[in-house]
């Protein structure tokens, strides 16, 4: 049985000569919470849009809940929740109008939740959406995406224009009602603390490829910075993820070493310092 919600195989997508997805392979198992990390232009949004069938691809195959994204079944569409990066949509309606409009297109709709969230996130019910602030629009988009209780959530920078308190509140909603339901979540972000709080897996993207995909806890235990002499570091070449940066006699590099081997290496190579890195530092250096 195939339990992968998303299955992408050597997907190629280019925009007038620029390669946005470069033979990308990616899969997302059911029930996983995956944070998609990447710098601007790494292809995060493109990946999501391709998965949802909002953009055509040039080569490769994609399956979303087993469907071809270009012909998603009704059942699949009913399971999907999507928060796009562009949130200034349906500006000609007010929030309740937009929500009741969308309600007509779903078999399931949780009115209590939408109302509670509108109240909690204090979104005006009489103002046109086009006149709401960026953060309010984003929150409204989140409400829309959660209202039909989807079990596959695809969130494209869902907290980009929210303040820290707003982000915390959104994450709490995610933790309480989405993750608790065992939903599958793919979200892109550049705010690492959020990712660390809720994600189980992390996938790092760079120039249209998935650089690495790993369990977050494992990765944060394995992410290390090595400092030592150039020849000594070269001996650990197999672990290195970045090129050596040489300052005089010492050189540094970022590596991923399984926790069990770290202690062993410390003994074997006392001349090398092995330091733990925060995920953020790791991310910045690896995707540099």
């Amino acid at each position, binding site marked *: 049985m195939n339990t992968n919600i998303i299955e992408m195989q050597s997907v190629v997508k*280019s*925009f*007038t000569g620029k390669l946005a997805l470069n033979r990308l392979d990616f899969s997302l198992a059911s029930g996983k919470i995956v944070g998609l990390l990447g710098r601007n232009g790494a292809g995060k949004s493109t990946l999501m849009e391709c998965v*949802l*069938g*909002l*953009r*055509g*691809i*040039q*080569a490769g195959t994609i399956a979303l809940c087993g469907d071809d994204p*270009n*012909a*998603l079944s*009704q*059942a699949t*569409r*009913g399971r*999907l929740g*999507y928060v*796009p990066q*562009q949130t200034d*949509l*349906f500006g*000609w*309606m*007010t929030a*309740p*109008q937009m929500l*009741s*409009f*969308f*309600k*007509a*297109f*779903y*078999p399931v709709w949780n009115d209590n939740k939408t109302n509670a969230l509108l109240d909690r996130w204090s979104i005006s019910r*009489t*103002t*046109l959406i086009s006149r709401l602030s960026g953060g309010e629009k984003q929150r409204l988009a989140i409400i829309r995406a959660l209202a039909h209780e989807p079990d596959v959530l695809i969130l494209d920078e869902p907290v980009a224009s929210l303040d820290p308190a707003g982000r915390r509140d959104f994450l709490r909603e995610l933790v309480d009602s989405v993750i608790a339901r065992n939903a599958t979540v793919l979200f892109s972000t550049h705010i690492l603390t959020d990712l660390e709080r809720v994600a189980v897996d992390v996938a790092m993207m760079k120039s249209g490829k998935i650089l690495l995909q790993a369990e977050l806890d494992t990765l944060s235990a394995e992410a290390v910075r090595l400092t030592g002499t150039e020849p000594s570091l070269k001996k650990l070449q197999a672990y290195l993820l970045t090129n050596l940066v040489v300052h005089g006699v010492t050189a540094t590099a970022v590596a991923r070493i399984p926790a069990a081997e770290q202690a062993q290496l410390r003994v074997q190579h006392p001349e090398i310092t092995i330091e733990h890195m925060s995920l953020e530092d790791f991310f910045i250096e690896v995707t540099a």
Partner: protein
Amino acid sequence: MNAAVASDTVVRLGGRMMEMLSSMRVNYQVGHTLGLTWLRVYLGVAVLSVLIAILLWGTAASVINALTIVSVGILVVWWFQFVSAMYAMSTPQNMRLVPNLRRETVWLMSLAWVLTALLLVTFFFLVQWFFLAVFCMLAAASLPNQRQRFAATGFVSMVILCAAVWQGMAGTSLLGANFSAGLMLDHAVAGWAMMAGMLAVIGLVRVLPIVGLVLWLLWVGTMMFNTRIFGMVVLDPLQLVYTATSQTSLYLVSAAAFFCLLLVGMVGSATDRALSRRAEVTPSGWGVATWPWFGKVGWQWLPGFDYFLSRALGAPYDFGRLMQFTFGRMLHWSTLCWLAMLWLLLGGGFLFMLSVPDGDRGAMSMLFAIIFIPNAVLLPSALIRATYRVRAEHQMLSLTPRWPAPVSLNRQVAWHFAKYCMVATVLGMVMMAIFAIVYKIDVVIVGKFMLTMVATGVVLLAAVLRCHARMKSIDLGLVMAFWVTLIMLPNVLVTLTFSSSYSPGWFPPAAFLGITMLAAWRYRQFLRYPKSLPAGNAVD
């Protein structure tokens, strides 16, 4: 049965219907907002045309003409939206979209609908529009599915409307100063009524295409060889208009239109009441929300003005929206089509007015070319711009389980269509202008043809975009543009060559006939993806 009982029955029947219709809260709210947009468009066009009339001629008659054209346009739009919405709602597929809509509603509406259609057909069977409408509808009926049938129907509806409008105005400057002459447009209303009637038929009967084919052959025979197979029944509308039949039909159409407007008003008020009961959107709330200055201006002197607007405009647009939700991919598509139609009406007014002074015909043709060629570019660009804007909205909708079209727009393809439609239209227009100068063709015909081209280009483009949002290859755009050109130019030649003495009465139907048939035929082929299509190389 005495009058009281009869009226009571009507009220009860109406009340039941209204009650059921009032469950369409969602669309109604959307309708509010769009209704207001429309009001602004209407007012804008009205003011513009009056200003133009004053600037150019400064006569009371020209102002009245301009106003007449605009107001008739509004009536036609309302009528069409009402009827098409009824049609839209009477299919099971669409019922799902409307929460809590009851089965009886649909039956009741279908019944009212068919009765209206029958009424109109009975009184207009002598008019040529009947035949035109029948076979256009039948051609449309042969399309494989509801959505495409509807798109094609919309297309021919617009074509017939335009034709009818111009025919009514053709070469008759004696109509100029006469207000009631504006009601010559009853042909237009009749044309729309036909459309409406036929829409019902299309939805119900599948064997009609064969009948349509036979009718079409007879029609073409009449047209091409001037044999007048229908000589007994098809009368020249310019003669007809001065007969008793024509007068009767005029009154009947007006009566039917007003009946429908009344119905629309009733639906509006019922919906409004339902809305007030829910107390979610207060009658003054949405106006202020849409026009911020609404709250600042002292509207107290006109209590309920906002309320009145919501009632008068909200409900018909509610239907309009429903229709679009059901069939449309782009939320603003029909807005643009209607805008295009208003442009055309305005253009018709121009022609109407210009036909009064007796100027140099050749120079006049050039003037028309200058006036209308930019339109050929502007309208499709506007459409495409709107496509951009709504693309993201459309994408969100295409991800919902009940949105009828689960694919999103391909920008590149849209652009190509737009470009080639523009090229084809401009080319056709320039050719026509040259024809006009060389052969000293009647200025009205030239103008009509140009308007026809703009209309055809825009509607064809829109229809294609609607039904083929996700084309796999842009080569089809080329094919389509090629066909647009090919359809138009031969028609010019054919009608100029074969129709007797460039009869203003016959010209538009003949041209439209050819265009419609070829377009419908081509369109149908087009709707089936050719096997040669390279799949999977879409760029957007």
